[in-house]
């Protein structure tokens, strides 16, 4: 079987959906962040596949490099915030953050 653009896009879509489901269902803060990473990587697979098969060309690869760096930076900030939450609440269950409402 010839592997083409659509196969890559399917992989990207599966990663995206898995990430969104993970974000929506996980109660553990770290789990939610892992879902975000899956979504970003789903988009990255798309970018690289489009770079190979469409006139998007090198732009796609460059964007995916930027996204990898940004995902790392975002994860660093998010983990610091999760640690800060843990220090104050002794848990990283996002449902336990229930003081702000209304």
């Amino acid at each position, binding site marked *: 079987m010839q592997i083409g653009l659509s196969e890559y896009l399917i992989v990207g879509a599966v990663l995206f959906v898995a990430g969104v489901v993970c974000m929506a269902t996980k109660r553990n803060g770290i789990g939610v962040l892992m879902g975000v990473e899956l979504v970003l990587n*789903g988009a990255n697979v798309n970018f690289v596949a489009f770079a190979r098969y469409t006139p998007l060309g090198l732009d796609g690869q460059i964007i995916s490099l930027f996204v990898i760096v940004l995902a790392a930076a975002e994860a660093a900030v998010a983990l610091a*915030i999760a640690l800060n939450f843990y220090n104050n609440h002794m848990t990283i269950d996002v449902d336990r953050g229930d003081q702000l409402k209304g």
Partner: protein
Amino acid sequence: MSFSELIQSLLDDTTRSLAHFGPELWLCGTILALLLMRLFGWDRLVPPYIVATAGTLVGFGITYFDFLNLEAAGEAEHLFTGLLVYDRFTIFFRLFLTLFLVFVIALTVLTGIPDREDGPDFYTLLLGSVVGMMLMVSANHLLILFLGVEMASVPSYAMVGFLKGRRLSSEAALKFVVYGAGAAGVMLYGVSLLSGLLGTANLPEMAARLNLVVTGEAGMADATVRTIVLSLMLVFVGLAFKLSLVPFHFWCPDAFHGASAEVAGFLSVASKAAAFALLVRLAIAFLGQDPVAWAGVNLSLGIAVGVVAAVTATFGNLAAYAQSNMKRLLAYSTIAHAGYMLMAVAAMMIIRHGGAMAVFSEAEARSEAQRAIGGLLFYLWVYLFMNLGAFAIVAMIRNRIFSEEIDDYAGLVNQCPWLCVCMLLCLFSLVGMPPLGGFFGKWYIFASLFQAGKVHWSMWAVLGIAGLNTVFSLFYYVRVLKAMFIAPRPEGARRADIPWIEGAYAGILSLSVLALGCAPLLVNSVSRKAREVAGVLLIP
């Protein structure tokens, strides 16, 4: 092209671009200086806010110089091989953002929210966020769109959680980062599909190819077209999150409640302004190519945006009514104001559709669309002063009475009468009472909605809802003022004596609000400038 020619053309492009990139470079240089200060321990010798203020003032000076020569900036110039665009719109928003940054840094100095130890970190985050917003307002490429949004968001997550030991602050930051990262991921997926399907990530090229797709015979039945529409909606989700539009507003009250009032004031104005600049750019670039061919798309998207705007304004105002915490109340009022401002974008889309449907003549449609966007820009200027003023006064009172509950504001007028008058001006301007600045902001947007109603009746419905909302919003703002002015100060409550310098700061902001409503010359010149700036985007 030989290799040396390629290098030469890149060098030429970069040197030409750097000349127009001054404010951003200055802010980046200031960030580096702040980090190095921390490294070498110089922050004990020189207070970090001095470095931050100096760098920002230079950035503001450069932008102001550009702004004075606004007429000279004729054609839009593409910087860095087309990643950024430099036109009057860019200059206008750079001026807005740098001026706002000066005000925010002054506020943090007055209320002392980052202590000396944390100063370099806080200002690094603040300036980094503004650099991201400046990229957003000059984005010409999907990469910069995403990078700008993320560069603006990631430091603001950290700033919301800056009060380290507080339970509320850490909870707010966690909620903000979870929602924000999710929205950014969804937006990136939309960007990947959009750029892949159109084969380019450069906005003008994308708009031209999108035009080919829409004018082609494929129509909405084609799978590619439907995917493009879906991916545009995913990109809109990311922007709607930044703008806190319903149903992507959940983060806003929680983040503002948990963050310090200074940070909340910063987020409520700067990130809204940058996101609106980006939204207007996208909307005009994508929908403005050929109004006749785009007629159906313009109409249906315009109505959809109008409905989102009406729902957002109504929800914000209804939810604000039940709040007892001042920052939460202002957060819902921020949501409501995002709704009002979005109405201008909806009106612009519908008016352009009217131009295509011969309800307006071509020239009329252009000048009315220009009015709508000009109204939005005017509103943003007034919003800068009135919203920052309200948050600043909340911060000043917090430093004295250690509370942000509306009930604890009872009888403050006896202790700090002038500050209460400033709050009165800011809040009445938020309602939109004449003769304050907020009145003219609302007036321009409502007038555009009325014109748009001639094209499609739904805009008149949106106008009616907006009018009702304005009346309704009066009640919850007045509740705050009633506590401050009429209720007696309870026995034994903490005194709120405000030093004159803080009073002067609040006074400058609220006098600006007053001047933007009372001085006809100023109102005229600002709104003319705003229309002129909006014009550069609309001229094809």
